[in-house]
């Protein structure tokens, strides 16, 4: 660890009684000189290119992983296990874009937001099923491009409508 000693303790008391500790009063990640080199490297074209190549190289592995999560999502759906469905959809939204399956990620994100907004109350089965089937079609390559985008937009509208209906009926969400 490269702890840099604070130059001078600089803490002050706020009217609320809280203490404000200035950034120069605690160990810095690195010295100013080291930081200058590090930031120059971080912002260099070469480093950016290398990092982008890293992401591109992981695409196939991520795609295989997404396919596994989609299978598990289907299984959770058959068992009506909402927690498992949320967990699998959450994994999909996290890595689908990196796998080159951004639309599936958006659909999975919509499903997660829907479950989250319901806060444990019963979800509309059709809304959930439509999301899962759409994700499966995108990942299998059955839906792609403009069609997949339109479906994703329609699913977003559906979630908004369903949550609106829940509110109108006095249900949570």
């Amino acid at each position, binding site marked *: *660890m*490269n*702890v840099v000693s604070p130059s001078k303790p600089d803490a002050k008391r*706020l*009217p*609320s*009684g*809280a*203490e*404000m*500790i*200035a*950034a120069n009063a*605690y*160990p*810095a*990640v*690195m010295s100013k000189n*080291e*930081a200058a*080199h*590090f*930031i120059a*490297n*971080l*912002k260099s074209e*070469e*480093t*950016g290119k*290398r*990092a*982008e*190549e*890293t*992401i591109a190289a*992981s695409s196939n*592995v*991520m795609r295989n*992983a997404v396919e596994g999560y989609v299978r598990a999502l289907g299984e959770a759906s058959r068992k009506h296990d909402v927690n498992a469905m949320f967990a699998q959809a*959450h*994994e999909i*939204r*996290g*890595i*689908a*874009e*990196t796998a080159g399956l*951004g639309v599936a*990620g958006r659909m999975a*994100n919509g499903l*997660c*937001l829907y479950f*989250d907004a319901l806060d444990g109350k019963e979800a509309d089965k059709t809304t959930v099923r439509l999301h899962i089937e759409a994700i499966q079609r995108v990942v299998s390559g059955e839906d792609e491009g403009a069609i997949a985008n339109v479906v994703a937009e329609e699913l977003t509208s559906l979630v908004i409508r369903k949550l609106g209906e829940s509110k109108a009926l006095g249900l949570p969400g």
Partner: protein
Amino acid sequence: MSGKQFDYLKALVVEDNPHMRELLRTLLNALGIKQVFEAADGTEAFAQLCEHKPDFVLTDLSMAPMDGIEFAKLVRSSEDVPNPYVPIIMVTGHTERHRIEAARDAGVTEIIAKPITVQGLFSRVAEIVERPRPFVRAEEFFGPDRRRRAKREFGGPFRRHDDEVEIR
């Protein structure tokens, strides 16, 4: 891998998804950080943090048994932690407002929404190096100042003695 090396830097990656953990590690490697320690949840991460004393932490939110929020709280509050000021960058697919606020209130320094991008990750790492945040120690909170930057249009309440209040 070519490029500059920053051998003195240590990072800790906390992520239960092995694919994402691997991706974050290789991205940090691409940045020249070779010492990258890994953990799959908050409990394991805390042990790694105490042992290796990383210079910054990248953590997921949803993990079991200890999630990223509880881990951040522990880092900011435990007497056993070597550096309670260590920057914590949360990498999460949870973009719901209440979860973001919970992360902020737990003492998280920066938040990156998944899917991870080079720009997103590098900008947050640059932020913790170039613009380290002041810390606040209050009765129920210890962590980076939750007011990110002064807002000209901020209308109050003005509770700090250094708030710039224009009296008309």
